[in-house]
């Protein structure tokens, strides 16, 4: 019940944030030098005066600024993100057709990063001066410093060019019927490289974070208590240590989600993954403004939803937050 009221609050705040994003988008459009109708029409509208007129009408560009703003916010809140003049379909349809692959990629990468990163850090912390611990530290530095698309290319060279065990790009063979086992297997096979490439930065960060927090935890009083109970080292580490060590990792993962989403844009481009990132880049290259602004708005929605989810995960893992805040 408490959890519910906290969540109601969070959702209320999320809606306020989204309205702010819409207003921001609108102001951004108005800041672009030149005729706003032309900006919206982009390449597609360059020639046709009828289209320009249609845009002026539908955006109400002849009305005062605050009226335009209000009707823009109202429309977006109802899910009307305008029409793509390049693809010639409503933007929301375009986005919904691409959001699945992006979510699949991002979620997989996030889980890989949290699980692998935490485990590497936890193992390294048990022998902070050992070889493994140094390897994890080096891995963290490398993962942190390499551009994600370069990491992706290196993995491609290794697993596609040299070992030849993974597909180069794409998500699935277009002739495979959707929903069959074959289709799922193909998607999974195609997902491995992009997901690990995207996860690489965060494996690096989280292993470093988990290592530091686990080292603190190992010196804590409750670990001593667990030892004094006669528990095995394994139980001490994986029951009493791990759960505490994962808390800061999940917290950070939530805070960073917008960065992970950013990384997905690049990774999708590298792997030709048919998600929002490739759509965004296509839209930008075609100057398809309604689609661009729609994706910007929609990605904010995704980030907010993931923030809520990680917040929920934190509350489940850490009972202190569950009752401490909003008591």
């Amino acid at each position, binding site marked *: 019940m408490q959890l519910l009221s906290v969540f109601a609050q969070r959702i209320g705040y999320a809606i306020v944030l989204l309205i702010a994003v819409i207003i921001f988008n609108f102001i951004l459009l108005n800041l*672009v030098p030149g005729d706003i109708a032309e900006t919206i029409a982009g390449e597609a509208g360059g020639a046709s005066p009828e289209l320009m007129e249609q845009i002026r009408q539908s955006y109400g560009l002849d009305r005062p600024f605050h009226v335009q703003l209000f009707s823009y916010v109202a429309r977006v809140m109802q899910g009307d993100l305008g029409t793509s003049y390049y693809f010639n379909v409503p933007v929301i349809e375009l986005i919904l057709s691409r959001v699945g692959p992006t979510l699949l990629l991002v979620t997989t990468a996030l889980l890989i990063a949290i699980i692998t990163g935490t485990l590497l850090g936890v193992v390294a912390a048990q022998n902070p001066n050992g070889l493994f611990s140094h390897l994890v530290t080096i891995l963290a530095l490398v993962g942190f410093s390499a*551009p994600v*698309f*370069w990491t992706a290319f290196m993995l491609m060279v290794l697993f596609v060019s040299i070992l030849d065990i993974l597909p180069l790009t794409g998500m699935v063979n277009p002739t495979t019927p959707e929903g069959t086992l074959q289709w799922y297997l193909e998607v999974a096979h195609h997902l491995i490289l992009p997901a690990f490439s995207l996860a690489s930065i965060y494996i690096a960060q989280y292993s470093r974070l988990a290592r530091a927090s686990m080292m603190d935890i190992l010196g804590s009083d409750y670990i001593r208590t667990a030892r004094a109970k006669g528990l095995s080292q394994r139980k001490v580490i994986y029951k009493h240590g791990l759960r505490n060590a994962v808390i800061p990792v999940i917290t950070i993962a939530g805070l960073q989600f917008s*960065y992970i989403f950013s990384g997905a*844009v*690049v990774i999708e481009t590298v792997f030709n993954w048919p998600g929002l990132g490739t759509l965004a880049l296509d839209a*930008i*290259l075609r100057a398809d403004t309604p689609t661009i602004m729609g*994706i910007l708005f929609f990605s904010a929605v995704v980030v907010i939803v993931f923030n809520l989810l990680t917040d929920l995960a934190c509350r489940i893992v850490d009972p202190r937050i569950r009752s401490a805040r909003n008591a």
Partner: protein
Amino acid sequence: MASQSASVSEVRDGKTKVEVERPIVEFLRMYVRNMAAVVAFFVFMIIILAAVFLPMFVAVDPFEIVWLPITPPGQEGFLLGTDNLGRSMAVQILYGARTSLAVGGAAAAITLVIGLLIGSLAGYYRGWVDEVLMRVTEFFQVLPPLLLSMVLVALFSPTLETVVFAIGVVSWTGVARLARAEFMRIRELEYVKAARSIGSKDGRIIWRVILPNALPPLIVTAALTVGAAILFEAALSFLGLSDPNVMSWGKIMGDNRDYLLEAPWTVIFPGLAIFVTVLTINLIGDGLNDAFNPKLRER
């Protein structure tokens, strides 16, 4: 151990003359204990010097086609080979270094200025100022930074100035949070209370009293911010969202990405350049961190 190590040098006239080691010397002493950071510093210096001076001695324009496309490294006198258009990889990377470093540095500067300004005001004034500024920060954390900067570059013009601005404007939230936390911590310390009690102006307290004490973590963050900005610029130009008339590391990779399997060097070398540069910067950041927090090092 001791951050202010003092040594009694001589006793004269019944007075003890204490010679306090200058902080900068102490700082350097701690820094050089981190070997990786020392090496990184010299490598970084070499990279900067090469980026600044070497292009002066190269008579070739980076966009100029000099030989057959896809010449492997080492052949025909091309140290790093040629790309898919027959342009010299080595020359491109050399010129690219200028762009990457300059754009990265400038974008990091903007990031730091915005972050510091917002963070310091929020942390110092707290209350509604903090509330408002933190809401703004949260707002910017909701928009994927790369996507937002792509949109900015696309809506405005793809020039280096836009890129610098687009990176700076989306990356400052982390710096702001850190600065805010530091300012909140330091403003409660005795010497700040003392400064306030003697009636110092807010501006003076913020910039002359608190800021110098908040500098250590901010300097470390500044180093990391430069590294992140270089990576950011690389991603933008890789995606083709930068000035098409200026060579940069990300652009080289973007131009050649379809030739990865036939000519891997055209993608691997520029990536390596980014990696090594950012790695050295991060190692320098580590070294600075160790030098500022000698106690943490002993863990």
